[in-house]
């Protein structure tokens, strides 16, 4: 099974992407975003999620939150490259929403292939948002590292680094059921669920520790390991897509500043010390972007290579995000170091994403095991 040369990105996908770009530019331009999430500069600021639920609701009505849901479950069943394009636009707008976690939950549920999972997917079609609780409080989602137990229909234990937990309606939880790891679905506000918001750097996200104290949940898979094996490539690819969009915003915004800001009677973009690193950033962005589309395309057309290509995409995007974000602050000079300059919103989101679900080196280590040890 080989990939279509055009990544499967046809007219329908292009229309969706363009619509999403316009929707976000119209409804949440960067100045509005800054007002929304950065009104409070105090490092001891509140941990409440800052977002616009009504904007999310409009996206639900546009059907964008069920792109990835299979048609069998009433979703649009669009290909992964279309979903990646949407995530890329969300990144470009540094959009605060449960989009990524809901997309992640969607791919994981679709990988469960159970009746119960199908019901959960229908909830997403119905407009519900969801997020994953598959990481322990030490930040690991490896098989061995699970601190949640499932017994007698109830969840006990704790999970960490749950993305956008305050924004999500449902939780998809990895838990040890005694015979192995399963996946469980429950409402975030179900009784026995305690969501303790983290104080985090990123202003466009919320994150939490979730403690389960005998919370009733539905088993959607009795084999979390194989479901995760299937879904992780999509999870890695979509966060990489978000980084690519955000990186492009940083590149264009910094280039614009370099075209206009004058020092020594010249626009600073004249100086190769500014120009050349911006070009290096562009080269990294284009590499990451191409790798994201390739990984997304593989999810639909070359599943046997999806994991490999997703490692490449996330590794490339993580390193790009760190480099481009650093240069964006540096080249904005003194102003770039202040709260009032919009750049820090992206800097923080990018550094959050860079270490989420494995940083560049972690993915390269996995890729090496795939390419070098399987011989």
């Amino acid at each position, binding site marked *: 099974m080989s990939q279509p040369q055009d990544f499967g990105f046809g007219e329908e996908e292009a229309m969706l992407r363009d619509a999403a770009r316009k929707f976000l530019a119209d409804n949440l331009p960067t100045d509005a975003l800054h007002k929304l999430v950065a009104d409070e500069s105090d490092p001891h600021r509140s941990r409440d999620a800052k977002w616009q639920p009504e904007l999310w609701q409009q996206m639900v009505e546009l059907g964008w939150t069920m792109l990835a849901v299979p048609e069998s479950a009433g979703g649009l069943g669009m290909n992964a490259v279309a979903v990646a394009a949407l995530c890329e636009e969300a990144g470009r707008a540094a959009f605060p929403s449960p989009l990524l976690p809901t997309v992640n939950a969607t791919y994981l549920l679709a990988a469960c292939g159970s009746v119960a999972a199908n019901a959960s997917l229908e909830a997403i079609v119905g407009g519900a948002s969801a997020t994953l609780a598959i990481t322990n409080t030490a930040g690991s989602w490896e098989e061995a590292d699970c601190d949640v137990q499932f017994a007698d229909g109830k969840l006990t234990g704790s999970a960490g680094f749950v993305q956008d937990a305050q924004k999500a309606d449902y939780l998809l939880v990895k838990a040890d059921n005694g015979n192995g790891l399963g996946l469980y679905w429950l409402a975030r506000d179900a009784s026995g669920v305690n969501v303790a918001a983290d104080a985090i750097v990123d202003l466009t996200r919320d994150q939490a520790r979730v403690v389960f104290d005998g919370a009733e949940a539905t088993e959607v898979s009795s084999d979390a390991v194989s479901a995760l094996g299937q879904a992780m490539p999509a999870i890695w690819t979509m966060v990489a897509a978000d980084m690519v969009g955000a990186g492009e915003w940083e590149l264009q915004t910094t280039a614009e500043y370099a075209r206009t800001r004058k020092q020594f009677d010249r626009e600073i973009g004249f100086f190769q010390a500014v120009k050349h690193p911006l070009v290096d950033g562009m080269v990294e962005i284009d590499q990451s972007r191409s790798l994201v589309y390739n990984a997304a395309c593989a999810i639909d057309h070359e599943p046997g290579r999806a994991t490999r290509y997703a490692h490449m995409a996330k590794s*490339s995007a993580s390193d790009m995000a760190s480099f481009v974000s650093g240069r964006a602050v540096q080249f904005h000079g003194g102003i770039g170091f202040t709260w009032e300059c919009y750049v820090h919103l992206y800097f923080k989101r990018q550094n959050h994403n860079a270490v989420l679900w494995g940083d560049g080196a972690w993915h390269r280590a996995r890729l090496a095991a795939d390419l070098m040890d399987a011989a």
Partner: protein
Amino acid sequence: MSENERKDTPEQAEFREYCRDWLAENAPPETSVRLPLSPLEIMTEDQLHYLQDWQRKAYDAGLVGCDYPVEVGGGGRNDCQRIANAEMQGAKTPFFPNVIGLGMAAPTVFYHAQEDKKAALLPKLFSGEEIWCQGFSEPGSGSDLASVQTFAEQKGDKWIINGHKVWTSLAHFAEWMIILLRTDKSHKYEGLSYFVVPIRSALGKGVTVRPLIKMTGETGFNEVIFDNLEVDDSYRLDAVGKGWQVAMTTLAHERGAGQLVTPQAGGRVQQREGEEETVFGAMSLVELARSSRRNGASAAEDPVIRDRIMREVIREEGFRQCRRRTRVQALTDDPMRIPLQHKLRQSEIMQDMAQLATDIEGPAASLYIDDDNAPANARWPLAYMNSFGFTIAAGTSEVQRNILGERVLGLPKSK
């Protein structure tokens, strides 16, 4: 059927099918001739003839110069060269030897030469019968092309050429050279004119071709000395003083930014057994690591080496996927953005890979091509040194970054 194919015009669709059928029959078989990694590295007559034969066959079949008018030896088709290229690449054919002719000389001659010259020069260029080279660089003018000093003095309807060109690849096989000359010393840009000049037929009669010795000890490119070479005015391209504009046509096509698509066959080179097909051979670094020991253990077990190899594997895949993306308009905002990155990306990946390879080899990287114990026949220390040819020639990496910053990001010129 790919998106691209779906977009084929009837003519393109029909031609695509024709190419496929012809290539199924005629794609040249594997050869015992050890092919170089790029046309610019053709050194032996054997290599040259094998590749010339292939170009001639492809030309006779109509796969070369398809979009040029019939009158100048072209195929008279509309936007079909890229179809032929895609099919030839799909068929993994060898590349064409007349790479400077097809990529730079042909479009320049076509847009700027006199009609009779087009008809006289282009067919043999397309067929590969006559190899072309390029005379731009000089000892005093590398990155700064407009500072060329090789002078052409007009004598009636003749021009007398004196001067010194360097880094002229393929000059040792070339029949013709496209050359940028100074015809007026008082103006930098307006003082330039552009000619086609004979090389082989003028050897010993005003033209001397000397191999330049690379830091590797190999001869690769040449210097060409002009001593009162007499050229007919009819070989001038465009008006006197318009050389810079003509050169821009050449450079635009060199960078893949020209109007005419360059005929390009696949890039088949010798491949190791069982080695996954790759652009630069990043996976061959894995092989190298497996066969190298870093004080006591296999280099393939060293996580730091593994990390570095994977970086290059990822860059190589990124290079391949960027090339793929350029063909999908909906996923490329600025059509020139990725093509203009091509040379920079390619040359720096090659350099970093070769350097990594020498690190993997460790002390054995000290061994050179004559040493029977040299890993991979000293391919990597050699490749590392040669990689600087690619980061320096045809616009240094520094100049490439200027071009990208200025043309794509709209930053002010650095000069």
